[in-house]
């Protein structure tokens, strides 16, 4: 090795430093909050049996395995995006979709007001007082919507509120699950 080439090694720390800067610079501006996708897709929903609200019939895992694909919407009256997606849920309902709701950490009184304001597109609503149902679906918050096939297996997860452009996607996923 000539003396000249030997000296090049002193450039190595500088190059490493520039590489590190580029790596960190590339991460600037990225959202610091990770979107945690459910790992439950392709797995069956764990058995559950939720009471209904206001004396209505509740929701159990048996209602998700009736041979027909269904949508399950995790929502709450205290959740603002859940109100935003109400018209889209209505549209799905009109398209003939079986739609069940799971009310997360809610009270019957608040839920009553919420449904009166935004409409009730749900076939059945389960009352999840402790918020444990999110673990059953691998959900990280509300609202989230799941496509369940006729055997009770989770096929698709929609994170966040359903906006108008998401309605055809959900309908397609329901068809795929049939």
């Amino acid at each position, binding site marked *: 090795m000539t003396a000249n080439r030997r000296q090049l090694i002193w450039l190595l720390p500088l190059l490493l430093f520039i590489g590190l800067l580029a790596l960190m610079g590339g991460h600037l501006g990225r959202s610091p909050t990770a979107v945690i996708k459910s790992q439950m897709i392709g797995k069956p929903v764990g058995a559950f049996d939720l009471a209904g609200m206001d004396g209505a019939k509740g929701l159990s895992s048996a209602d998700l395995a009736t041979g027909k694909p269904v949508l399950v919407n995790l929502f709450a009256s205290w959740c603002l995006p859940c109100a935003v997606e109400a018209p889209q849920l209505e549209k799905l309902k009109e398209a003939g979709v079986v739609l069940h709701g799971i009310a997360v950490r*809610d*009270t019957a009184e608040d839920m009553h007001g919420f449904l009166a304001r935004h409409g009730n597109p749900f076939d059945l609503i389960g009352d999840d007082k402790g*918020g*444990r149902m999110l673990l059953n679906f691998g959900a990280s918050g509300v609202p989230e919507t799941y496509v369940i096939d006729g055997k009770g297996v989770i096929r698709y997860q929609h994170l966040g509120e359903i906006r108008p452009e998401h309605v055809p996607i959900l309908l397609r996923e329901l068809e795929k699950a049939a």
Partner: protein
Amino acid sequence: MKEILVALLLLFGGPAFAEPPPPPDVPLADAGLEAKATSLMHQLRCLTCQNQSIAESNAGQAQAMRAEVRELVAAGRTPDEVRAFFVERYGNWVSFVPPARTDTLFLWAAPVLLLLVGGVLVSNRFRR
């Protein structure tokens, strides 16, 4: 006039939507089991607050996860089984204990590799 009207209207404002506070934690009766559950809670990541453990978070979701941890520990599950329960649902992201995986192999090997590089550099220096 406008100000008075606004002030009057404010009187009729309804309460804003807010998530109700989570129910208080109920520690396990057995102190040993509770200690086991608490140490597990420090190893699990809160989903809504992300970089806090569920032991430190006040979020309703973290409270639900703590209740689940206590239930699993009380049912006699080992710490590894409890961690696996959450990893099965949320992936490795949910655990603060880094698992041995091929894509984190470099992370674990880095200290040894760097020590080797340093050793080579130093021995070259002395040989000269």
